[in-house]
């Protein structure tokens, strides 16, 4: 693998949660970012560990799961290109609730979340739209999850 280039503000401009920020702020955020790659099967983070880092997936899929005795590692959600992995660094108790494993080769933009938080804390004009952007992502995830709860594909015979 060749040298890993720094992420650019252009990459962030159209993607949640960064699309609400000004170009200046996007450039600032870009300085906290770097390109990373994970081979298939790599554990990106583990359930229970301190939550550090968040990743904007550029290619590949990441499986989020948890260990269920008797069922093994159960994948409850997969995330694909364009999606953001890792929110727990934003909210107490600041540790991961699920384990994230690269189910294919994954290339992503990784953010230094300590610096991201510092930037957000020091400048509300950056912090507020960034938070709103994350909120939007979480709301969308909730809507998708509620769709799954509806069990729409179930048979009427089972109701």
């Amino acid at each position, binding site marked *: 693998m060749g040298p890993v280039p720094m992420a650019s503000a252009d990459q962030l401009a159209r993607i949640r949660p960064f699309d609400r920020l000004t170009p200046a702020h996007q450039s600032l955020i870009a300085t906290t970012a770097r390109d990373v790659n994970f081979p298939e099967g790599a554990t990106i983070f583990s359930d229970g560990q301190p939550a550090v880092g968040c990743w904007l997936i550029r290619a590949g899929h990441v499986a989020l799961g948890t260990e269920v005795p008797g069922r093994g590692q159960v994948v409850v959600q997969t995330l694909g290109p364009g999606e953001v992995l890792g929110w727990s660094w934003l909210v107490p108790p600041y540790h991961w609730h699920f384990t994230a494993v690269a189910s294919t080769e994954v290339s992503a933009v990784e953010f230094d979340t300590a610096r991201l938080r510092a930037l957000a804390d020091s400048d509300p004009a950056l912090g507020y739209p960034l938070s709103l952007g994350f909120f939007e992502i979480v709301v969308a995830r909730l809507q998708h999850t509620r769709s799954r709860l*509806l069990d729409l594909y179930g048979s009427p015979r089972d109701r």
Partner: protein
Amino acid sequence: MTGNLPLLYKVASSHAETQDSFSLRLEPIGAALPAFEPGQFTMLYKIGVGEIAISVSGDPTTRDGSLTQTIRDVGAVSRALTATRAGDVIGVRGPYGHGWGLDQAAGHDLVIIAGGVGLAPLRPVVLGALARRHDFGRIVLIAGARTPGEFLFTEQLAAWADEPGLEVQLTVDQPATAWDGQVGFVTEPLSTLEIDVRRTIAFVCGPEPMMRFCANVLLAKGLPARSIKISLERNMQCGVGLCGHCQLGPLLICRDGPVIDYECAAQLLATREL
């Protein structure tokens, strides 16, 4: 009632797609029905039990007179039909209804989104488009099922995954062992799909809420509502516009549908108990 009586077809083979869905390959005993357009349905008659409307799920380019229909066991008639075996005789009327309009979609990118057994009425779209591949731009298929064991046409899906002219994404709602594919509702891979809204036609089929959710995702991307086609279902007794049951507001689903564009359908689906 009409003068059109069911034509008799013999079940040539029955294939269990899932625990409760079967694909019947039907061959005419006497006269054959006219060729079908993707999206059309027939009225399948289990003699003495009843008749139900089922979308045709086979290859629209077939010219040997055979008909493939995929049926899910959800009621008395569908149970009787899914219980048929090779050699049994059933009646068929049709094809009826307004189809997907694959011909009119020539020159466009196709985004095909199937939820559960919604893949059955969409299979003719994929097969029809692949048969004239150069007439279309990108062809994307996103199919969702509750669990990996509930996908229809698994062999065909596997073949399509290797088809160079087709982008396939499968996703399941519920976590499952021995599945290393996507886990999430169909709207999730759809949300991250980049499309050219100026040249895309979307065909969506599945439970009504699933079609609404997918349509919202597509509209949020900027796809015009009239470029989103959905396939609706209502109670059908006659299938030919005479019994009144299949009404949805001003539409007769058997005649103006089952395929309706979302510009027309959105407001109707938003009204409770319409």
